[in-house]
């Protein structure tokens, strides 16, 4: 089976669940955080030099084993609050951290079957500070504005877009080494794909904004709006879930250096 893991208000993931089915991917199950919270019988075994083995019981009673999961579209940003809401107030944060640590281990054990792979800096892919994105975007070949931070700034500054207010911002969707979304110059699209590879985030939303001299990097997210990719994106995503080796950009698959 293929899982789409997401929060119940993640409309883009719910769209992808339907679009993947329409693209011919069989046995696609939507598992919202509410659904995840109601999973029972978790058994996650590891250590002693053996392979990691996981099984659990879905809300409808079916038992899913390691081998049953063929692929996962992973859109988790946090563990289900449905579980921790019932914990004693002093234990809520602890329970939340425990669940996040557990889901990270489980999803990591599934290896290349998970898009985006979970990281310790974000269950649905690594969240990066604007300064990190700016450096990576520069390395990927995108024109990048200066990012500046000082003691005078609020600590959430680094998670905002680098585009100036009122700028003409467009979002590119990178998946499996291809760019989807609005028509932009080929070099910009290729650099966005390269950014996804450098960030080790196969499914990446990249915002760029227009300046007289061309397009500049504004922001990136591992949890992009998937709907902008349309059916072409859904077909590509379905292929990536079926054949994880197709996740990398074409030049990386051929072993070429850029």
């Amino acid at each position, binding site marked *: 089976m293929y899982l789409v893991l997401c929060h119940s208000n993640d409309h883009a993931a719910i769209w992808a669940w339907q679009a993947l089915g329409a693209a011919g991917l069989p046995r696609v199950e939507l598992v919202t955080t509410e659904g995840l919270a109601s999973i*029972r*019988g*978790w*058994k*996650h*075994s*590891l*250590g*002693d*030099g053996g392979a*990691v083995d996981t099984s659990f019981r879905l809300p409808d009673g079916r038992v899913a084993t390691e081998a049953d999961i063929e692929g996962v579209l992973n859109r988790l940003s946090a563990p289900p609050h449905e*579980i921790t809401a*019932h*914990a004693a107030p002093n234990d809520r*944060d*602890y*329970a939340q*951290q*425990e*669940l*996040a*640590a*557990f889901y*990270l*281990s489980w999803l*990591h*054990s599934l290896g290349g079957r998970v898009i985006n792979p979970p*990281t*310790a*800096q974000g269950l649905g892919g690594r969240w990066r*500070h604007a*300064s*990190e994105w*700016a*450096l990576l975007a*520069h*390395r990927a070949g995108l024109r*990048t504005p*200066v*990012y*500046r*931070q*000082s*003691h*005078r*700034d*609020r*600590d959430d500054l*680094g998670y905002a877009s680098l585009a100036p207010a009122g700028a003409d911002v467009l979002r590119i969707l990178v998946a499996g080494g291809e760019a989807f979304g609005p028509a932009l110059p080929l070099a910009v699209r290729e650099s966005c794909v390269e950014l996804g590879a450098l960030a080790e985030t196969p499914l990446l939303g990249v915002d760029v904004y227009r300046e007289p001299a061309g397009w500049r990097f504004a922001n990136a997210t591992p949890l992009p709006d998937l709907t902008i990719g349309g059916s072409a994106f859904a077909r590509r995503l379905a292929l990536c879930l079926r054949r994880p080796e197709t996740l990398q950009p074409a030049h990386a698959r051929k072993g070429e250096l850029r």
Partner: protein
Amino acid sequence: MILLCGIPSETPLRMVRERLDDLGVDYVLFNQRHFADSEAWFETANGEVRGELRIGPAVYALQDFNAVYTRLMDDRCLPELDGEGPESPLRRHCRGLHETLLRWMEIAPAMVINRCAAMASNSSKPYQAQLIEQSGLLTPPTLITSDPAEVRAFQARHGRVIYKSISAVRSIVHTLSEEDNDRLNRIQWCPTQFQGFVEGTNVRVHIAGNRVYATAIETEATDYRYAKRQAGEPAELREVELAEPLAEKCIALARRLGLVFAGIDLKITPDDRVYCFEVNPCPAFSYYEANTGQPISEGVALCLADADAHRATSDAVMNCAALA
């Protein structure tokens, strides 16, 4: 230049600072309790990172720091902020300054002991265990489950079983006892981590760059850090030497996790099997150094000095090449 960050009286930071003094190596100390008289900024432009740190009257270019040792404490808990409201200018200045320094450390082209990103694997022990096994070390047999029947079956298979947190929070190890059986049903709401108890000798291995300091810990306690509470006696520590292949595996593991300085918890069984429990990315090594005299702080200081000298040399070579 070397930058030290934290509270100077905090033992690990104090010890590293003293070793740098012994070595005659210059450093700059950012005392976070003096935040009110400090400022910082950095910027990224065209792939370069530059900025400034002002401490009192002295101003340093951030790009001149080649090595950083950070023991920054949670800035929200500094005593200088007692009585300050959540949005007070002093508190905002303190937060902004620390956030700026922390963010700079994540991207600085300097050796940093250790970056937050590298330390993050410790937030999930079974996730880190998978990385440890990929480095060629065994990890204990582990079951994370929300099914009490699975716990009983695991206990029947392994005999003595311990339980501990999955995350880095409330990380105290306990042996699963008869009394715990009565409350085992509670785990159905939150998967819980159990491990087969591994008999043997605890060994803490501190890795500082390529330097290895191994300390054996003898105790009857389940968690030697709480030996006095759990076994009534403090643990006994002694210096040991690791076989070279094992030392190399430990160095490789720290490197794989991106850690310049790490505390690796091993257990060596009577039949010489080596299990790795976890890698501490921010080890408070002073406990081990104080009990054994092992020069761990010197190892950290030498790492910093090496990185500083190496980067300065590299820059000098590059500058000469550019001039030629």
